[in-house]
């Protein structure tokens, strides 16, 4: 336990870094996937190719990708940016499918009604389609968020500090408690972040909750 007392500050720092390395890819992934997914379901042929390449991207193993990206970007292998880029790619790959499905399942009548009431394509997308797709997008974000928090730890193998560093250190020092601490911290961080997404969803999509309780 004295190890925990002595290292509490450092674990806090690692958790904070870990948080940033997890949040940034999910947000970037969402910002890319929503417009592209919206476009993809309106243009099925090219959109299908796009969704297909997204799922191929997701099959690429994380550790190899973490060592390939710095060579492409010209960054140092120790640069945290590599982790952000790789995890953003995964987030886009997963959320692209979610976004396309979310927009595709909107009731035809609602979209037509928006057109009939004089909404331009942009107004319709932003004021009608995006809010209605919100709950499905949120569900996708929660799945991606959990797996991203877990994947960040792989970065510790190439020297990017985060809670995963507790695994590599604990392993080298043959100290089980440090690894268990890391596992607990990672799971807690994933839960915390999930709670934040749910909270954000309630603030931004208040109707989603009333809909569910009415059903």
């Amino acid at each position, binding site marked *: 336990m004295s190890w925990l007392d002595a290292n509490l500050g450092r674990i806090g720092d690692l958790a904070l870094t870990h948080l940033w390395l997890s949040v940034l890819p999910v947000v970037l992934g969402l910002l890319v996937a929503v417009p592209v997914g919206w476009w993809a379901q309106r243009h099925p042929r090219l959109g299908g190719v796009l969704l297909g390449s997204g799922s191929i991207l997701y099959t690429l193993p994380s550790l190899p990708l973490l060592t390939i990206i710095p*060579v492409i970007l010209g960054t140092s292998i120790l640069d945290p940016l590599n982790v952000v880029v790789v995890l953003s790619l995964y987030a886009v790959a997963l959320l692209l499918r979610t976004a396309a499905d979310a927009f595709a399942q909107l009731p035809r009548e609602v979209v037509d009604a928006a057109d009939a009431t004089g909404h331009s394509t942009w107004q319709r997308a932003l004021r009608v389609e995006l809010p209605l797709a919100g709950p499905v997008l949120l569900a996708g974000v929660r799945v991606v968020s959990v797996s991203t928090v877990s994947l960040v730890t792989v970065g510790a193998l190439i020297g990017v500090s985060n809670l995963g560093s507790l*695994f590599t250190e604990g392993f080298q020092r043959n100290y089980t408690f440090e690894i268990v601490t890391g596992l607990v911290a990672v799971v807690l961080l994933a839960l915390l972040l999930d709670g934040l997404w749910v909270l954000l969803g309630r603030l931004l999509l208040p109707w989603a909750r009333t809909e569910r309780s009415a059903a």
Partner: protein
Amino acid sequence: MSDNVFVGAGQWLTDSAHWSGTDGVPARLLEHLGYTVLTVVIAAAIALPLGLWIGHTGRLRGLAVALTGSLRALPTLGLLTLVVLWVGIGLTGPILALVVLSVPPLLAGAYAGLESVDRHTIDAARGLGFTEWQVLTRVEIPLALPLIVGGFRSAVLQVVSTATVAAYIGLGGLGTYLIEGVQIRDYPMTLAGSLVVVVLALVLDAGFALAQRSAARS
């Protein structure tokens, strides 16, 4: 700088010295595939009967969903290092961890596959006098096959990816080039190893995509 790493990786891959012996690409590739097959076979022996039972009876479904969901949150590197400290260096620890990670996709493929079968088809089979066992083996499993194969696809790719990480705890396989390369700053070797793993993942995924398609057609 980055161009040099690419050129270096190209030279590394075309150097015949890296294609023979116990540390050569073919040996490491076989090792990697061997671990993958061993892991998925053990995991399937556990997950398939369980998943088929859950899908057929509809019992414990909530537990299975919660289990597959929460295992996604578990960091693979943490599990691998922890298991090795518990079980000790050797094959048992890493394989055990890899099995734990590949059970959820196989389980999900099996129960989701059975759930996707139309209830009317099953009732019709019962009406024709099929026993429960016949319903399962002659109706449900054949119709669920594409999703069951999909479960194998996710599990295999998951293991190929995680086995790379497991080189850190001494499992061997293709991940050795990556881990050693980073440790001794031999980035061309790291990149070469990464490219081999990526090609392996893409080839396996394409193979499973074809298998899924033929399972859906038959």
